[in-house]
């Protein structure tokens, strides 16, 4: 089996040669196809273990039912519309919270970064907030905003806000000074310099924050829905557990995984589109 050493030190044309000839090296050990194929095998193996471990009595069937039963429960929920209702509830909450975080954190972060004194003033405060677990604040949100939608959206907003804000600040603040110097040489106004130089330079860093926020949005929301809600994926999972509908509970869990994957995939695709110049 080829190991890391063999793969990384494989004989290949150097980058200059590749660039001059307009070609890319193809690894003997690890092509694109081989990678995908191996990944697929990994997933199939996981599915087989999940299916047969309960059947063979390696784990308690009541607590971990075989995958086929879980998928069956999943299918039933899709057919009955139960899944759609709960998924929609979760999606609306996380999308609203996430969207609000986007439109507030990016402009605020950019403004903070642009004025170093403001940055000095806010950095310690932001560090405190960043290190406060969003879920720890759920009681506060419930106290102030009640048990309804607002408190759940607020907690998603809180969880998404800080990754985006802090990444926007660091992205704008760490713009290459040489680019700013050349903007000054061209006589650009500060506003134009920000718009045409500092902000575009920060976009990749901001996107990293957006991706972290996307993952946080789902994570925090599911947890919040487990505590007090009448719809949503978190509610579905705890409700199923309380009623000992174990396959249904796993179906809910799989849905959150798929949702998380889909959101991350979408954000990565968006990131690639906006930072095409890096690849």
């Amino acid at each position: 089996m080829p190991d890391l050493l063999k793969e990384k030190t494989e004989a290949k044309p150097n980058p200059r040669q590749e660039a001059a000839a307009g070609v890319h090296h193809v690894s003997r050990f690890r092509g694109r196809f081989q990678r995908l194929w191996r990944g697929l095998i990994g997933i199939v193996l996981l599915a087989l273990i999940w299916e047969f471990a309960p059947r063979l009595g390696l784990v308690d069937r009541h607590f971990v039912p075989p995958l086929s039963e879980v998928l069956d429960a999943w299918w039933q929920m899709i057919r009955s519309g139960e899944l759609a209702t709960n998924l929609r509830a979760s999606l609306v909450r996380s999308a609203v919270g996430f969207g609000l975080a986007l439109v507030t954190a990016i402009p605020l972060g950019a403004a903070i970064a642009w004025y170093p004194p403001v940055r000095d003033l806010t950095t310690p405060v932001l560090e405190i907030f960043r290190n406060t677990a969003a879920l720890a604040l759920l009681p506060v949100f419930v106290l102030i905003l009640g048990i309804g939608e607002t408190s759940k959206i607020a907690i998603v907003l809180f969880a998404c806000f800080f990754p985006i804000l802090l990444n926007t600040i660091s992205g704008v603040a760490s713009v290459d000074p040489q680019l700013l110097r050349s903007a000054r040489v061209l006589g650009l106004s500060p506003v134009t310099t920000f718009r045409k130089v500092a902000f575009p330079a920060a976009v990749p860093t901001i996107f990293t924050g957006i991706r972290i926020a996307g993952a946080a949005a789902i994570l925090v929301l599911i947890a919040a829905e487990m505590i007090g809600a009448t719809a949503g994926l978190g509610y579905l999972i705890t409700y199923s557990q309380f009623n000992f509908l174990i396959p249904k509970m796993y179906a809910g869990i799989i849905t959150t995984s798929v949702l998380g994957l889909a959101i991350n995939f979408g954000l990565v695709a968006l990131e690639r589109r906006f930072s095409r110049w890096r690849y």
Partner: protein
Amino acid sequence: MSSTIELKDVGQVFRVRGEDDRQLREFVAIEHLDLTVGAGEFLTLVGPSGCGKSTVLDLVSGLTRPSAGVVSVGGKEVTAPGLDRSVVFQQYTLLPWRTALGNIEFALEAAGGLKKAQRTARAREYLELVGLSDFAGRYPHELSGGMKQRVAIARSLSYQPEVLLMDEPFGALDAQTRERLQEELVHIWEATGTTVVFITHDIDEAIFLGQRVAVMSNRPGRIKAIVDVDLDRGSPDDDVRSTAEFARYRHQIWTMLREQHSPVARLEEVHQVA
């Protein structure tokens, strides 16, 4: 289009903190510096590293104001950056999210006065001047170091400045690319007639490019001597760098730089802030 550059008794002082004793001090980068560059002239500036070459360029470009003395371009005192002057830095300062063409358009957008289509046409014209017409749609990361610096030069020339300031623009390039770009730069200078101030620490480069070579002293930087270079550069096929005259200039400047190469001198130049 070209302008005279004049620096009169210019000094530049920065605030620094000592690495060993943590004391605030004044750091005298340049002191009593006088230099005049004629309109349309190609002047190269050589000096030991850390002698304040780049500081001179920052002053002429208007990025910083001098602590003492007067800097003027075209008879007017320099108080801020302006589109009559342009700078090519050593590090490639292209916007990585814009294509080669887009980077030149960026400068033209800043300069103003042209419509979108005119900007594109002008940008193409200057890309052609530096021989990169085929690479208009490439992003900087897809260009070699030499190509990036060509784009930077095209960008600087595109808004037709009267003075072109260059801070070791070829310093990061390999020897062959550097020589080719030097030749191209001379052609471009002849074609545009812009005043050029070119900073380098490479003596050969200074002699090959400059009509005059200004030699700076150790910090605090001053102009130590100015050498008139009278070389028959002739056709590009003649290897002017290997002629006897070239070697003589080289030796003359090398000797000047060598004389002041005493590292002890540098340490004593720091004045403590009271």
